[in-house]
């Protein structure tokens, strides 16, 4: 079934994949090289302060830091500046991630086994709860709307996008910040690799800021269920049969959100206008409503 039942607008987006930049990978995938955005360095969790500022990162897990970086960039905030905003009850947060806190859970349980519970750090208390990434985003950016953590495996990103659309349709939010994120620590990689053939886990995040497209489509991109006659008109397709991100590593539960944010970059920032995102779980058409760079 389709991820979204009705079109939504994306008014901000960011792909934040620490490690080798996407640019070279994308340049191999099609003739024209991508824009500068694809070559920008994405700060890893240890360097998250360069994006987020120095305060408040103590005891934040790598996945939470990476997710915060993706949101920060999707909102277009200046590097190193922590937002100082009043509470916004109209903005919801939906995060897809499966392995975000498994390293902390494993470490705390080992500490209990070897040293006893008195040795665990209370700073890890929020991190043993699986929703820590979504609630941390809400706290950091003061988003007071519904807050959802989706942990449904490889299709978590598609589910998160569907639920974001549902929150908009149901009038529960007028803006939804959707994030897909996975870490790449040893615990996460071991669980991800167990019984699975394919590329190794690639840590990273992406974020889209969604609004309703019911009345007026804001400047950005329109995301809608793919038309029956696929793939007309997209010139580019992300997914099997097109640009397959799995060549860049397995993004786990972050994959669908990364694919969609990448499509927004290509459609609007690189002037490709229409980009398809399609795989077994979701099939979406991304169309630029504003071209940031003419082609």
């Amino acid at each position, binding site marked *: *079934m389709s991820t979204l*039942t009705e079109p939504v607008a994306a008014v901000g987006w960011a792909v934040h994949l620490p490690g080798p930049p996407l640019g070279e990978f994308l340049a191999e995938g099609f003739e024209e090289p991508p824009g500068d955005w694809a070559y920008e360095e994405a700060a890893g969790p240890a360097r998250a302060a360069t994006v987020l500022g120095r305060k408040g990162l103590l005891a934040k897990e790598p996945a939470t830091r990476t997710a915060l970086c993706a949101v920060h960039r999707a909102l277009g905030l200046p590097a190193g500046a922590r937002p100082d905003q009043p*509470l916004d*009850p109209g903005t919801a*947060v939906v995060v897809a991630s*499966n*392995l975000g806190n*498994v390293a*902390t*859970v*494993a*470490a705390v*349980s*080992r500490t*209990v086994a070897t040293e*006893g*519970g*008195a040795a*665990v750090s*209370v700073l*890890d*208390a*929020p991190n*043993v*709860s*699986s*929703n*820590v990434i*979504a*609630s*941390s985003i*809400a*706290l950091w*950016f003061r*988003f*007071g*709307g*519904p*807050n*959802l*953590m*989706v*942990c*449904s*495996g*490889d299709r978590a990103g598609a*589910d998160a996008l569907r*639920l974001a659309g*549902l929150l908009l*349709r*149901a009038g*529960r939010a007028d803006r939804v910040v959707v994030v897909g994120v996975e870490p790449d620590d040893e*615990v996460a990689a*071991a*669980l*991800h690799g*167990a*019984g*699975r053939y394919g590329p190794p886990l690639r840590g990273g995040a992406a974020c889209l800021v969604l609004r309703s497209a019911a009345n007026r489509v804001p400047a950005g991109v329109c995301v809608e269920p793919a038309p029956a006659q696929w793939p007309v008109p997209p010139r580019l397709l992300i997914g099997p049969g097109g640009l397959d991100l799995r060549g860049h590593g397995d993004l*786990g539960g972050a994959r669908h959100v990364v694919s969609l944010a990448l499509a927004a970059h290509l459609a609007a920032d690189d002037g490709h206008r229409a980009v398809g995102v399609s795989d077994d779980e979701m099939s979406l058409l991304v169309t630029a409503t504003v071209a940031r760079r003419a082609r």
Partner: protein
Amino acid sequence: MSALIAASVISTCLGDGPQTFAALLRGESGAGLLRHSGPERLGVHAGYHIGGDDPDRPFRAGELLAGCLRAAVRESGLDPRTARAVVLVGTGLRELSAVEHWATGGPVFPDRRLHFGDVVRQVLPAARDVVTISNACSAGGHALALAQDMVELGEADVVIACGTDTMTRSMLAMIGRVAPVPTTRVRPFDQDRQGVLLGEAAAAVVVVPEDWTGPVRGRVAATGLSCDAHHETAPDIEGIGRAIRNAYERAGHTVSDVDLVVAHGTGTALNDPAESEALRKAVAGAGPGPLITAVKGAVGHTSGSAALVNVDVALRCLDTGAVPPVVGLRTVLPEGHGLRFVRDRPVRTPVRLAQVNSFGFGGVNAVTLLEAA
């Protein structure tokens, strides 16, 4: 707008829904010794376990869920072989106990077993979608909210909102770490409360549109959602208040309509005063105010199932006109003075509209309003 509840099934330390409700009316508690190995290491000595199973065995959350889901499908009259239901599973701790089992010497397992997709499809092979929503202690309330939205907007004909949780050693260790003395039982809204204890539970609530022709247990008027965006673990009166107001706005009710609140009531230092204050603010000036009960003294904090356990209890209050007392409450905390807690024995009164509270780590709040069908 509203949706109907075709079936509601729970499993707690006190038994199934009817057994749990009967025990609540008798004022019983299911608290016992914590059966995980090495309770002295965890700093937690008591818990609310289901059955005689070894709690350190992994993947029990999925087993509990499957049992409730199977029963809920049967009670609603759906054909388990063909039902194209959407299933939303709310959970606080997923199957993270399996991660702990592996980290301390057990076998590794594929990460797809962390969520409940495979478990649900064994019960309902034709399920359209299975989404695991990991929203801490209000996960079930969030699942119910989204289930109603999907049904109302025509995105699905049947949505089953579920909850399931066992305990993780990492969460137990955190509870033990912050408790000044080991808690022996949960005492919601008591001035001498000692903190929270976990309870194992699962729940499944079948949500259907108003034109449903099968069995009906009640009507869900609305669920209000909010996030405090205030503190990582401490609750916020303002954030809770927003969820309460959101529920009444969505339902088209006023707080003076409500007869009963099944409160979150965790027995912690922070939750119970904040919840009391939020309730007081919400119902201020609205007549005598609703009766208030809470179940965690009897069944423990059932985390991702907690909202739906409360829903099942509220449906039985609507149905029978009997409201169980707050098990574990002896002396009401100062912040609760003036609120109408049900004490010591059940109250018999017509209940037409009931409010169910659930609040989770990270300030995620879900407040549900239920009516008789």
